[in-house]
């Protein structure tokens, strides 16, 4: 079931908006030419993951140096800080743990979320 959640301009770049869609809260964010939708429920301890820090992926070539991989949006839950790959929902440090993601797309300037 696809849900039209509004015009694309209502979804600012790199800022998560959380919407109530039916019984669920879904976080939606545009990142470059992509758009992501995730369930606002952390699979670690049930926290409101979409209210956490959203950023590119902090990486490091060697101790003491930080680099930013802006092509890998990463969401850190505000409860306990566990990080998730926004494109797959998988926890960075525990591949068994995922937050639920929903297919999202932009059609004719509207954002559509597939909630099946």
């Amino acid at each position: 079931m696809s849900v039209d959640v509004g015009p694309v301009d209502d979804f600012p770049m790199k800022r998560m908006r959380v919407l109530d869609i039916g019984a669920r809260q879904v976080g939606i964010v545009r990142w470059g030419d992509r758009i992501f939708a995730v369930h606002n429920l952390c699979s670690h301890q049930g926290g409101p993951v979409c209210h956490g820090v959203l950023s590119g992926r902090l990486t490091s070539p060697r101790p003491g140096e930080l680099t930013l991989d802006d092509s890998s949006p990463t969401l850190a839950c505000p409860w306990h800080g566990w990080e998730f790959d926004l494109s797959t929902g998988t926890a960075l440090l525990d591949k068994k743990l995922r937050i639920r993601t929903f297919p999202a797309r932009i059609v004719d300037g509207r954002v559509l979320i597939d909630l099946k």
Partner: protein
Amino acid sequence: MYTGEIIDCDVHHARGSDEEFVAYLSKGWREYVADRGPAGLVPLTVQDGLPNPHGFMRADTYPENGGAPGSDYETLRRQLLDRSNVRRVILTFGDDSHVSGHHNPYFATELARALNDWTIERWLPKDDRLASSILVACQLPERAAAEIRRHADNRRMVQVMLVDNPYNYGFGHPVFHPIYEAAEETGRPVAIHGGAGGWANPASTGGGNVTLYFEAHTLWPQAMMTHLVSFIGHGVFDKYPKLRLLLIEGGAAWLPSLMWRCDCDYKGLRREVPWLRRLPSEYVAEHVWLTTQPLEISPRREQIVELLSWMNGAERLVYSSDYPHWDADEVKHISAQLPQSWHRRVFFENAMKLYGWSEAELPASRMVNA
């Protein structure tokens, strides 16, 4: 009881006298410490502020002809080397090991150099079962690294030893990295020896300084925890992927719970340490060994065995007696605590792997039957 071959990774040797050692200082430093009459020598060791009410040494280890425990080879041979199937012991110095507790970094550096030379000349020729730690003064890490490299070709100077902490940062802090670079380059494990608490540079107890030796001794594992997490967090094992770390005299049973906590915290704090490539416990499983002494004793033996199993104790523990200290562990005592299937590994094989030795390069044991 285990009766097989033994490598003892912590045996404290000592100077018979100040005079015996002073000759190993450079001319300039000999002049600096020189006896000027009533004032005597400049103190060569830092003072311990926390006395043990019944002394730090086993009473029976005082040599018959005088001197400090650990200062007389014949006593050590009779009481330790010939008493069991010892193929190698690693000397770890006595009070002199606290060079990094000295306030004067240049004096500390010279003391470490001279103590290593004194050991090479006065101890190692006496018995081929003896090997020694390379003592370094951490105050000047570049100089410490040079001291390590100076012994690169001496196969009986087998590990780099750190004890006191001069800078109040965990030993993983980058200020210490030149030491680890030299250790890795020369193929020597780094050994952190517990017990710096209460000396000139304590910094070994979280929450506040201790004021009783009872507190200090019980809490020695705290310093080990600090240094181990510091090594992991600062990426020492990523920066020096061949480095091996031995934790001496800090106990062992605390390691599983620390690693459970550390792995969990890493998952929530990865953004601060994105240079880590693995879970903390995975670094430990590859890079870290612990000595047995002083092994924690649980109400039921199976409890400690279960706990040590969580850290793969059969592979990560190495035997140490801590002779001639008051809390030294006997082979009989340790073998009674550990499963028989672990014995040969803990008493012998694990140390062989840690130090990278082959059977051929170790001398035979020369046990004298009682």
